[in-house]
């Protein structure tokens, strides 16, 4: 090899190594910082080949398969407000998980947070898009005709009101005052909208095509994924970015974006200091395959842009190069600070 080439290689390694080392070091520090902050629940492919539910520490350690069912595909666990239970759906083994349809499919299940004491709440397709009420005694469902509030003990519909174009991903705010969902509004589809749980009044949260909304613990802010129209990259299709905004649609802010990846599965920690998300080159978040890599980031590092991302960087010139830490391969994570597993 020519001496000049060797020198170039050595120089590039010498220049690049500290930067890579610093990134690894920063990620390691981030993982240490969160290691004892409760548990993350998520679904992932297990050794039996199906989707199972897992718990892990927020640094990705202590991975526990809490369902381990070769006959079922379990997806989308959500901790109850008191953290003692999880709600999820299970489909028959082999049924593909569609990133947009999973809330309509399979049986609604509720178990203890460690996977014990499973209760199958409904038949296949019943209680679509069920999510917890603030007190954990009811569930919010999205049916073809209406939004329904169902009492878990009696299975009675306590209240019913128009869904106003919402067609998937419906969640009740922790304070009980608001609902957030994805729907058609003002002639546009894929808009995140908020409904006043008392009056039924609707307001638009996002003006770009968006989905997978979820609440911050303060019931004021909303996290969501959005793929703004008119992006030039990715042959004009663009890349999905992680955002948050106030529930009234004001103050939309970028959390994380990276050209070459679609960012989904955004959820914040119980104190809103950290955020989890998935990033994957294919749109859809990897649900139809084996999920996507789940990452952890500090909210204080938002907005962060990684990669070359020339279009994004020109749009957000002051974006940071915040630390992100890879946790595991999975889908739809959620986070509790409660010590739900008694470790020996």
């Amino acid at each position, binding site marked *: 090899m020519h001496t000049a080439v060797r020198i170039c290689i050595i120089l590039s390694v010498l220049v690049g190594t500290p930067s890579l080392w610093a990134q690894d070091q920063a990620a390691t520090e981030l993982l240490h910082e969160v290691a004892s902050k409760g548990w993350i629940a998520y679904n992932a492919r297990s050794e039996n080949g199906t989707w199972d539910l897992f718990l892990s520490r927020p640094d990705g350690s202590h991975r526990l398969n809490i369902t381990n069912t070769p006959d079922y595909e379990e997806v989308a666990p959500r901790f109850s407000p008191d953290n003692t239970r999880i709600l999820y759906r299970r489909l028959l083994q082999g049924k593909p998980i569609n990133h947009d349809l999973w809330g309509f499919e399979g049986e609604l299940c509720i178990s203890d947070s460690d996977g014990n004491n499973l209760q199958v709440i409904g038949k296949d397709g019943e209680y679509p898009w069920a999510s917890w009420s603030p007190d954990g005694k009811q569930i919010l469902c999205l049916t073809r005709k209406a939004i329904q509030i169902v009492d878990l003990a009696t299975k009675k519909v306590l209240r019913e009101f128009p869904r106003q174009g919402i067609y998937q991903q419906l969640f009740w705010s922790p304070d009980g005052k608001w609902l957030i969902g994805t729907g058609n509004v003002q*002639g*546009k589809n894929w808009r995140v909208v908020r409904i006043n749980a008392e009056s039924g009044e609707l307001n638009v949260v996002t003006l770009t095509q968006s989905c997978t909304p979820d609440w911050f613990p303060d019931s004021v802010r909303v996290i969501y994924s959005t793929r703004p129209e008119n992006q030039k990259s990715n042959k004009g299709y663009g890349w999905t970015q992680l955002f948050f905004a106030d529930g009234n649609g004001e103050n939309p802010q970028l959390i994380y974006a990276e050209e070459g990846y679609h960012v989904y599965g955004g959820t914040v920690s119980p104190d809103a200091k950290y955020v989890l998300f998935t990033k994957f080159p294919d749109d*859809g978040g990897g649900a139809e395959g084996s999920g996507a890599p789940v990452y952890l980031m500090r909210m204080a590092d938002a907005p962060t842009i990684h990669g070359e991302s020339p279009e994004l960087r020109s749009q957000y010139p002051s974006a940071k190069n915040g630390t992100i830490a890879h946790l595991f391969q999975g889908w739809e994570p959620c986070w509790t600070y409660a010590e739900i597993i008694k470790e020996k």
Partner: protein
Amino acid sequence: MGTLLDIRGNNQRKVVFPNPIPLALSGLLLAGLLPMLVLCLLSCGQKPDSGEDAKVTSMGSYEVTAKLAEIRGEFPDDPLYDYAYLMKYEILQVHRGIIDSNVIYVGHYKPLKPRDGVADVRSGEIGGNLKTFRVGDIHRMALEVPIEDYFLGGIMNPYSEEYSGPVHWAVWTNLVIQ
């Protein structure tokens, strides 16, 4: 009859058909009459069909025969995201229900696919014998309104700037052949 025998030196015989039509006229026939003949054969092969069947006459709250007047824009071809697409129709006949307008806007689910294979959890039971959407075709449809009460999915509305009235939901869509 009407053939000539070409006696070749190698005892091979070629049958030659005399051409009673001048060459120019043959060209005209090929260019003009042949496509007409093909079209005639094709249309003659399709029997008139009112689109009536047990599904279209019983499903939905409304039933119409209508001409597909306009498909504005192009159907996005994105297998990852299913949607209903609004199309403009001119009503020719109302069979069931009361529809006051001569023009209606109808949302069809997964418009790039044949109607008999589009139903899923978002749509509930829908279908029909229509294979493709073509402007000018006449459809017999069972409908519901408004679409938002019956369809749990994204709606692409190219008329949102100019029309804010009720949009019908296509429950069953059959092709009418006149």
